[in-house]
């Protein structure tokens, strides 16, 4: 049954999309600003024969997800920044054990308890690991409710295909905002590719064990090489990004998630004045769309980076662009949301190169 347009809050959108994508297990611990998601799923999961648990902590919740995932069930947990910090142990284990799962982070201000306002300060935490070991977590960054729905499906598919935890990185604003959404049709769980590695009890076959501990030096060495091959494949096949208004642009704005929406409005403001800027929006934060950004930045010659942190995605932009273009940076710590006009001033200043708003980055 194709679904009609629905007006829904971001957190609920993830919940409904997860159920339609075949998620049948959710565990999480309350934390603002994403409580609507567990609340939604506490009612929705039983309707589809799935299980919902309010865990006693984020640590317990991610480990419940680990257990469910090991039996082949599509499983998800969600939290916000300090809670996601606690999930890192489980994420690292699942990376090592090659278990698929989806982890939602609706980022809030930090460090520490910070505040509950939207933030982009967990970009490092999401893209650089956070748990121990040489692993990567694919990270998807939606820029609105429709994309939250679509990328939730994508997240489960990538997780299963590569047997890896996948993170969706939103923020407090995205979790709260209400936008119209058309949901993809629910999948038929039975149509998903079989998981021959899953634990189901050893009836009719040899027992299986899933573990990340490899005491033999060569075994761990080879396991890490295998993981790296997988990450290379993800980088080759799963890169996602979007561009807008770049053809005639004098400045390329790089922003993801909520800031990309503000940037888009700022670009439109400028264009009304005849000033031409364009948008490059990474959708996968890891793998980062390094080469596409490099090419476009080199062509345009000027890059303006805008994020809700004091410069985390900026590192990836610098690595992509280097000296091929001038780089300007406008970072806003979590909580204060700049208006499109604030961002437009930064973009104008960057085009002039006067450094009055934001700062010039020497790569």
């Amino acid at each position, binding site marked *: 049954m194709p679904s009609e347009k629905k007006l829904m809050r971001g957190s609920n959108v993830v919940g409904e999309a997860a159920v339609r994508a075949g998620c049948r297990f959710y565990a999480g611990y309350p934390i603002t600003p994403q409580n609507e998601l567990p609340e939604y799923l506490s009612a929705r999961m039983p309707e589809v024969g799935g299980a919902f648990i309010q865990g006693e902590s984020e*640590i317990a919740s991610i480990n419940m997800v680990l257990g469910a995932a090991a039996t082949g069930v599509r499983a998800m947990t969600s939290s916000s920044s300090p809670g996601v910090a606690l999930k890192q142990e*489980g994420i690292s284990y699942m990376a090592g054990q090659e278990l698929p799962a989806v982890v939602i982070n609706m980022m809030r201000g930090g460090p520490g308890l910070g505040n509950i306002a939207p933030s982009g300060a967990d970009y490092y935490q999401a893209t650089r690991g956070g748990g121990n070991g040489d692993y990567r977590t694919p990270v998807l960054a939606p820029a609105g409710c429709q994309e939250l729905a679509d990328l939730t499906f994508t997240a489960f598919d990538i997780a299963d295909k590569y047997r890896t935890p996948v993170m969706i990185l939103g923020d407090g604003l995205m979790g709260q905002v209400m936008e119209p959404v058309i949901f993809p049709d629910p999948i038929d769980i039975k149509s998903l590719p079989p998981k021959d590695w899953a*634990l189901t*009890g050893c009836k009719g076959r040899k027992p299986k064990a899933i573990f990340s501990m490899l005491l033999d030096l060569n075994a761990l060495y080879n396991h890490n090489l295998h993981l790296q091959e997988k990450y290379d494949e993800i980088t080759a096949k799963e890169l996602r990004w979007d561009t807008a208004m770049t053809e005639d642009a004098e400045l390329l704005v790089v922003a993801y998630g909520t800031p990309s929406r503000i940037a888009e409005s700022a670009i439109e403001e400028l264009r009304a004045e005849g000033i031409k800027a364009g948008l490059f929006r990474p959708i996968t934060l890891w793998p980062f769309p390094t080469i596409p950004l490099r090419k476009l930045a080199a062509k345009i010659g000027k890059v303006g980076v805008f994020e809700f942190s004091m410069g985390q995605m900026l590192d990836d932009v610098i690595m992509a662009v280097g000296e091929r273009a001038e780089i300007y940076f406008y970072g806003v710590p979590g909580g204060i949301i700049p208006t499109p006009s604030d961002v437009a001033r930064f973009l104008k200043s960057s085009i002039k190169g006067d450094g009055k708003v934001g700062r010039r980055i020497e790569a």
Partner: protein
Amino acid sequence: MSAEAAFKKIFGRPESLKENYTHYCPGCGHSIAHRLVAECLDELGLRENTIGVPPVGCAVLAYNYFNFDMIEAPHGRALAVATGIKRTNPDKFVLTYQGDGDLAAIGTAETIHAANRGEKISAIFINNAIYGMTGGQMAPTTLLGQEATTAPGGRDSSLHGNPIDISAMIAVSNGVVYVERCSLASLKQIRQAKKAIKKCFQVQLDKLGFGLVELLSPCPTNWKLSPKEAWAWVNEVMVKVYPLGVIKDTTGYEDKK
């Protein structure tokens, strides 16, 4: 008389144990506990329907010895992992096997809350009053006065706190149906331990709630005792702090008999 009647197999390796040598030290309680768990699974016909969760601790490699499906959990998280398995697979038989550091220190919250939710899971709790795997550091269950590498001169309540009785702690919860403490330090007690484990498994099969069997288990290596001395220490010293017997039983099994 036929050969069959003359030679009846009365002892062998349970099917739930693989034909591997364990890495456990001589006199270690883990190998005995493994065998008891395996015998009970065999006798209840559960092996092929079981998913087990080993700990991080000396039994971290239990999947090399147990002959059924197993999933490694991070240190202390076995009961959370088991919860995820059981809630999505209510018809599977799910057990955890955990040491005292795993179950009663780093995993205390996971233990108490799985128990309190009344998860239909069976927990086998190996209490050897020491951190075996990491080399003899103080455990939450270490006795007062007992030497540990991080409690030189012996555990002192004013410095190190007191031996924790987690079995008694969880027993107060309505979700917990059956808790028994047994010893692995004499043949008679080992037989009793097997009975307790089997009953604990039955609790899960009957979907009654959470069950746990605590096994006082010798660690001769880190106690720096011979295996024989270690048995004596369990029965003369350890049982005074951790008295043997049923701690909680709301199964009603005996009433039905």
